[in-house]
């Protein structure tokens, strides 16, 4: 099959030299800005990121323990009507995820009705029997979701992966926008771009809305594993922009099922915790007993209804790669209608016929570990060596249930600054969806990840990917008026420039 010619989000058809008519203004901007000027601005943005310490740690690399994620200066752009369709699909999907979690840790109707095989749940390490029966405050489980999408054509978006545990990357969405406002203000005159900078306010609103019932002014905190964690910058950034404490496990103590934090003036009660620690390490009394990052008694306090945890423990069962292939059925089961956002076609290697197909077509497919992430444990058939393919063949035959496979999609491209000037590079997209007691909101923006190597489809930052700003237009470009359907509160007005 090989890699087909890809859709370019700015230029339309692959290889086209003329931008899509709606985005003509971006074409003019590219035309009128020499690439060494673009490069200068890009370097200026990266220098700022380094100064601010917006870095991430790459596991297994001792030398460059702190790196910045490369930033690309050319934005990717969504038209208002494209975005509206996408938002509807995202809302539907996240609502289904919440309904699924509520069901699977409660009544289990979906199993009773035979939509999912029971062993898929009970044999899955992401299912947490420890928390079955616990109901989170307001019955909300996945408060903050990052849904990874890929695009193959003007109207063809697919969900690649759901992230319902602790999705990261929102700080890049915000910092990339800051950099673009500073370095390319002219683009915000050409396009009416929906603002993203109210995200921290919306997040805090979401946190407060899910506080245990009866708490008038809830104390909210962000729980981090500490400053050696690869996403620590984001944890501190979010706590800072919300104006709440950034706590580590050692700052919290549970007494009589109440969570307290240690302050210089003594203990202060905590009501809502945005935790950026995995389930496994959350509470050594319930999950891994050797965890030094956890808070003993936290789950008991949560079960007693005295504290809200965002996201709820146990969510892994909703975004696991083995569950992923059933998401269309799950969405249909809870929403009663067809999924507005399709999945990428997926072969479950646990099924003998699918396994046979995958083994016969290894050089054309992408094989993924069901429990892997960050681009580790992955085979990209078309670019793999013979030896890599044979290694995966042996692994697949030995443990087929640990793998899924997907066709190699012709991921869309966006012009990106490469050594020899602008060139198309493949991208994916992670929008962020917030769910509070007052409903679901989609942030009009997100994180665009770009594979900087020519032809590469791997966008993970740990594998040399970069990021771009993602514009969501409030009209359909070229002056055509259409409001962004406001999944994010009232109409967004982009303010120009930044107040001092």
């Amino acid at each position, binding site marked *: 099959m090989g890699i087909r010619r890809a859709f370019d989000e700015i230029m339309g058809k692959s290889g086209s030299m003329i931008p899509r008519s709606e985005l003509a203004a971006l074409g003019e901007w590219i035309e009128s800005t020499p690439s060494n000027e673009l490069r200068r601005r890009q370097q200026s943005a990266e220098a700022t990121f*380094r*100064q*601010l*310490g917006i870095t991430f740690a790459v596991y297994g690399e001792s030398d460059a323990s702190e790196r910045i994620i490369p930033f690309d200066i050319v934005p990717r752009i969504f038209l208002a009507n494209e975005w509206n369709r996408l938002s509807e699909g995202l809302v539907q999907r996240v609502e289904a995820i919440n309904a699924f979690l509520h069901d699977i840790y409660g009544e289990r109707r979906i199993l009773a009705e035979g939509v999912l095989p029971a062993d898929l749940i009970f044999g899955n390490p992401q299912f947490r029997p420890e928390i079955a029966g616990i109901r989170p405050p307001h019955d909300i489980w996945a408060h903050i979701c990052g849904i990874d999408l890929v695009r193959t054509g003007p109207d063809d978006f697919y969900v690649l992966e759901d992230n319902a545990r602790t999705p990261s990357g929102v700080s890049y969405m915000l910092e990339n926008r800051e950099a673009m406002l500073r370095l390319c203000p002219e683009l915000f005159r050409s396009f009416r771009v929906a603002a993203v900078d109210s995200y921290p306010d919306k997040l805090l609103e979401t946190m407060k809305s899910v506080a245990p019932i009866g708490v008038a002014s809830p104390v909210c905190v962000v729980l981090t594993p*500490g*400053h050696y964690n690869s996403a*620590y*910058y984001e944890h*501190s950034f979010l*706590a*800072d922009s919300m104006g709440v*404490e*950034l*706590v*580590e496990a*050692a*700052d919290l103590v549970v007494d009589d099922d109440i969570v307290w*934090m*240690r*302050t*210089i*003036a*003594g203990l202060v009660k905590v009501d809502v915790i945005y935790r950026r620690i995995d389930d496994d390490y959350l509470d050594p009394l319930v999950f891994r007993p050797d965890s030094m990052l956890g808070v003993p008694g936290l789950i008991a306090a949560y079960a007693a209804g005295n504290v809200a945890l965002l996201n709820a423990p146990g969510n892994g069962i909703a975004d696991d790669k083995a569950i992923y292939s059933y998401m269309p059925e799950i969405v249909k089961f809870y929403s009663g209608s067809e999924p507005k956002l399709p999945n990428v076609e997926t072969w479950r290697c646990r099924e003998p016929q699918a396994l046979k197909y995958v083994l016969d077509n290894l050089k054309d497919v992408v094989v993924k570990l069901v429990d892997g992430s960050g681009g580790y444990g992955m085979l990209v058939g078309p670019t793999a060596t013979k030896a890599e393919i044979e290694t995966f063949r042996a692994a697949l035959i030995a443990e087929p249930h640990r793998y899924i496979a997907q066709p190699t999609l012709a991921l869309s491209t966006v012009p990106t600054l490469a050594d020899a000037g602008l060139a198309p590079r493949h991208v994916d997209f992670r929008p962020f969806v917030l769910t509070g007691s007052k409903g679901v909101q989609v942030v009009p923006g997100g994180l665009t990840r770009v594979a900087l190597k020519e032809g590469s489809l791997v966008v993970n930052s740990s594998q040399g990917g970069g990021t771009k700003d993602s514009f969501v237009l409030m009209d359909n470009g070229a002056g055509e008026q259409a409001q962004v359907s406001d999944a994010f509160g009232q109409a967004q007005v982009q303010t120009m420039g930044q107040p001092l």
Partner: protein
Amino acid sequence: MLSRTASSLYWLGRYVERADFIARLVEATVRLDVLSPRPAGEAAWASALAVTETDAAFAKTGQSITKTNVARFLTLDASHPGSIVRALDMARNNAKAVRTALTREAWTAINGAWLVFDRRASAGNATATLNLVESVKAETRGFEGAIHRMLRNQTTWFIRLGQAIERADNTARLLDVKYHILLPEGERVGGVVDRDQWTTILQTVSAVTAYRWLYSEGLRPANVIDLLIARSELPRSLAASVEEAVDILNLLAKRTGLHGEADRMARARHARIARTRSGQVIAGGLHQYLQGFIGENDQLHEAVGRQFKFS
């Protein structure tokens, strides 16, 4: 405020102050070395090691005491706690742990100082060493400026409390190591080397010009001792550091309602130093006085930790 945050801010203050002090010590020692004939130059570097209490650690490296070796050891060697790079590393780790409490400017200054040293292998010749410490001083000045523009609340006060206590310790150590230079027994006083030594001390605490303003006469040991111990006009004197600790503890007490043994100790120390006359200190033994002061300063440090539930 979280106890851990308060503790990190306090330590951040101590480490930034320490980095700045070592930078100025290295700067003053380079000057002394250039002025002095051998082997007096080597003695200058040996005493720099003594001030930072790293003489034993340096001996373990098996290197000889030369300008290049000691300058590298005090600036770039992360293996011991008396180097600038280690102090900045610790400052940055503490700053990282409390990033939410700091402004971008304050963080950028710390990170900037740290980046000066990132992957640098050698301090280079005298000029390069001076450039290196100058850039550290520039960043710590930037940090100082940034914290004065932050909200006037516990965050800045814990940083400044750490700085005040570290500064008192540093100045006392500097005087203690150099006291035999100030009060030589049976040696000719007023020679060229002595003048340079005294200037070195004043330079390390940024007091060369201040001395001229306050004492309209040539360098005299009793005046230098008076300036560094009892003159609260000089920011790095013991009296000024002691006074600042009292003031900051007062501010913290007012805002948080927390006061206790640290306040009492700081006030008692302040009352004592206000009565101190440098003549008495010299008569009673400068070394004994400074050792007593350093011990007391450590006790205040412990009391602060207990009072604000650090650890």
